[in-house]
């Protein structure tokens, strides 16, 4: 049985709780980028990701959920399974499952996804295409708005480029 601090902090002692391994996995499977972090480059991964910092470049999480938190600012082309925006995104988005822009969230760019939900109080400027399959759309993605350029491909999966503490 694992005994690290993550596991111990989630042990509730009730009989309905999932086994510790499962809970540990759940904690590890959601990566968090804090608000003091700035990333310039390409971000690939095989885990769900929450961004509270700044990302400038390209983000690919094709089988996972990306959440842009309330402090998060992303200027990038985004290719994900699902995207939840509470902060700001400037760039084109391709999501194979869904895009949600919540109250206070802001998106400037074109969205290609079969399901799109935009809450009242959210800002959106761009186009929404719910017709095409995301895979097709990714190949024929329109040029990015607002001068967002694809980043040079220098990283391997689950790596990030030059995190800079502010």
């Amino acid at each position, binding site marked *: 049985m694992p005994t690290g601090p993550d596991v111990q902090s989630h042990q509730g002692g009730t009989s309905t709780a999932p086994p510790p391994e499962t809970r540990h996995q759940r904690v590890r499977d959601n990566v968090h980028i804090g608000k003091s972090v700035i990333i310039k480059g390409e971000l690939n991964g095989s885990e769900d990701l929450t961004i509270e910092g700044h990302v400038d470049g390209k983000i690919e999480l094709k089988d996972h959920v990306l959440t842009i938190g309330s402090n998060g600012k992303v200027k990038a082309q985004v290719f994900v399974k699902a995207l939840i925006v509470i902060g700001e995104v400037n760039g084109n988005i391709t999501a194979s499952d869904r895009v949600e822009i919540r109250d206070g969230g802001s998106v400037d760019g074109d969205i290609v996804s079969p399901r799109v939900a935009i809450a009242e109080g959210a800002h959106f400027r761009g186009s*929404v*295409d*719910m017709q095409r399959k995301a895979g097709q759309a990714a190949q024929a993605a329109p040029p990015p708005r607002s001068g967002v350029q694809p980043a040079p491909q220098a990283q391997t999966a689950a790596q990030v480029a030059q995190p800079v503490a502010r």
Partner: protein
Amino acid sequence: MALSDLFARLRKDQDADAGTADPLVHPTKALGRFLAALGTRQQRVLLDLGPGGSNITFFGGEIGCKIFVEDLSKDIDRHVNQAKVERLPTFLDRRFQQESETIDGILCWDIFDYLERGAAERLALQLTRVLRPNGVLLAFFSTADPRSAMRPTYTRHIVIDRAHLEYRPYAAARAKQRPLLNRDIQRLFEPLRITDNFLLKTNLREVLFRKAAAAAVTPSAAVAAEG
């Protein structure tokens, strides 16, 4: 048809006009015509001038259109708040990045009510430019005196179904301007042609415009043009 049948039908129409129990939900007669006029072409493209994404699910999911969302109310508010309303016409000249004749349908809602003459003309010119031949444009115009409003509001028009809209008001920096007369509306959008014009009990005029199909070039016309 018997006279009683006629009155029964009239009563039924009046009931439909009265809308549902929800006071924010109102009938629309032009939206169904707009959707029918869009046709069944693949990859239809809409331009929505209303606040961000109110009707994405309806038009994107159910109708299967690609939608450009260009919320003009925010632009108007910004110009009003910065005391730069006189620059609005010039701003509207450059506002739309879309290529000419690439949009199948335009949803203006009631945005023209908030523009003075000069800005309305520039906006109409741009919308006419981006609309495809045979494309349709839906616009609402208030017939009520704007001074009767206590405080300025925009209206978020949410499609409930093809025959009903929900009017959800939200704060505006600018009140509606003087209502446009019928002939002013017609001239504003020339060369678009008005195909449907409904005056509703809500003091709203729903107007559907269509751009003429591209004129076919006949051999004689081609010869005349060359000569």
